[in-house]
């Protein structure tokens, strides 16, 4: 056979593995890092106490719009420093959103995997709960619970955690059943693996990408839900503050002092965007076949 000239495709250098992070992910990581840092060090970095009044500087605009360096992001109608309130709101909202997302994911995934593992009665019970939860308007449930049991932060986080659990339960159950019916989970089971080994070592890592995407979808929803409940006066109670309640109370001054509302709104947008971008990237990285 005559020696063929090497084809140009062969000579091309192998495609470089993705180096470094894409810019959006870099931004997302930086922003979420900043938010976490601010949340952890809220008492250190905030220039004033978030309840401190400065009555002589009420509705003072932010710096650059005629404000002074005393209040970088301006003040609200009671003369409270918007930057200090924003910092404490970030702490509160992140605590609620991360806490509630994690609770929802853990509860939902656990119930979904249990349903897939035991089938029969357990599955029927879980599915009935899922249908119940999906058909009940969450806002009404939240109103009822908060009205009857009073409002504490722990209760509030747990309540919001119940918001999206049924989604994780459905996804986990469906994916676990399809993995068990044929393919890798059935193969590992016939190797003699215990149910827990199959579920935790094989099924959970394989469905994790879907669950992570679901979490990044639920996170912004929970922030918005918290805002809505706070706006209705059922969420975070004054004097405590959160991003949602800042937006809610700032609404009245939208035309005269938009900075009260705009700065927490910008934080909400950037944080939810960062979580989505990071979740998307994480999903790709967790899948070894998508390199």
């Amino acid at each position, binding site marked *: 056979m005559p020696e063929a000239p090497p084809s140009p495709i062969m000579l091309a250098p192998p495609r470089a593995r993705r180096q470094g992070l894409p810019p959006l992910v870099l931004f997302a990581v930086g922003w979420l890092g900043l938010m976490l840092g601010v949340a952890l060090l809220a008492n250190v970095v905030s220039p004033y106490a978030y309840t401190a009044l400065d009555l002589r500087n009420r509705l003072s605009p932010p710096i650059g719009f005629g404000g002074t360096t005393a209040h970088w992001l301006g003040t609200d109608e009671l003369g409270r420093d918007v930057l200090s309130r924003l910092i404490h709101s970030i702490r509160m909202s992140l605590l609620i959103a991360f806490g509630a997302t994690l609770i929802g994911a853990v509860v939902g995934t656990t119930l979904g995997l249990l349903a897939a593992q035991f089938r029969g009665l357990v599955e029927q019970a879980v599915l009935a709960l899922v249908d119940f939860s999906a058909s009940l308007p969450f806002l009404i449930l939240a109103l009822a619970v908060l009205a009857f049991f009073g409002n504490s932060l722990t209760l509030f986080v747990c309540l919001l955690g119940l918001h999206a659990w049924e989604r994780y339960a459905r996804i986990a159950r469906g994916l676990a059943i399809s993995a068990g019916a*044929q*393919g*890798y989970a059935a*193969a*590992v089971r*016939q*190797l*003699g*693996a*215990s*149910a827990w*080994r199959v579920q935790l070592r*094989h099924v959970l*890592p*394989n469905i994790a990408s879907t669950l992570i995407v679901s979490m990044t979808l639920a996170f912004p929803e929970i922030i918005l839900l918290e805002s809505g409940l706070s706006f209705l006066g059922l969420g975070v109670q004054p004097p405590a503050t959160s991003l949602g309640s800042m937006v809610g109370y700032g609404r009245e001054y939208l035309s005269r002092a938009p900075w009260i509302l705009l700065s927490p709104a910008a934080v909400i947008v950037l944080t939810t965007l960062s979580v989505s971008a990071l979740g998307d990237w994480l999903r790709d990285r967790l*899948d*070894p*076949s998508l390199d």
Partner: protein
Amino acid sequence: MSEAPLLEARGLLRRYGMRRGLLGRPVEVRAVDGVSLSLHRGRTLGLVGESGCGKSTTGRLVLGLEPSDGGGVAWEGRPMPPPGTPAWRALRARMQMVFQDPLGALDRRLPIGAQVAEPLAIHGLPGSRDRVAELLRDVGLRPDQAARYPHELSGGQRQRAVLARALATAPALLVCDEPISALDVSIQAQVMNLLTELQARHGMAMLFISHDLRAVRQVSHRVAVMYLGRIVEAGKPDAVLQDPAHPYARALVSAIPHPGRRQARILLPGDPPNPADRPAGCAFHPRCPMAVALCAREAPALKPRPGDGRLVACHLAQGDATLPKAA
């Protein structure tokens, strides 16, 4: 055979409920209907038949992956424990399965080295890197391929990885469910050779399920032909595949492509019958070119043929009925 069988299955039965339409009455489907077989150490039983005839279900029943609705499986003379029990799980080290779709059978998030080591960890056997490398070398993979993910391997290499995992606990029985159907023809030959080679080296029993008659003939010591959930003929592969006694086996054998052969293929009229609506008498009689009245009335039993003792379930082959004079 003088030696006691490693595994003996008697009258295996598997029913599925099926509902037609939204309000239809549930119909019982017998996927496997009274299959008996025995597997001996170091021997291979080939199981052939068209798709949907219950081959794979038989394989799963034999391994005890599904409970049998009737009959039973005895492993080394003792009944098979019910699926999921600790005794059943411990027994998995002795019997293993090779799947048709190797990509589906492997966890795509774990490198194959970790997956080959998994049965060792499950059954508490030492699972060192050297042992994994040895297993990989055993099936013709390089030890450095242990770090590869399933999607980075070719189809043949994946099937080798599945084999390495199945052989990790040195099982006494290997059930191969269409192990070569998803592979290229050139790779099929390699995997077949590997299977016979591994059997010669380790001496395990094999149940080889396939619709590829030539593959079955190459690896099997005995072959059984299945039709609609029942074994219709069984015997030595050369005898059964040279001179099939059952009309269905004859049609199957005539479908093997043969260069230079002039003989006409036997074309079976009609579709394989619906297992939910099994014909009365011999299940094959509506498609059988030589069916007589008896075939529609009475189901033939699988029993040795008077002449040479081959097991066949057919009234005509047994001589219970005679072929009417050709019109």
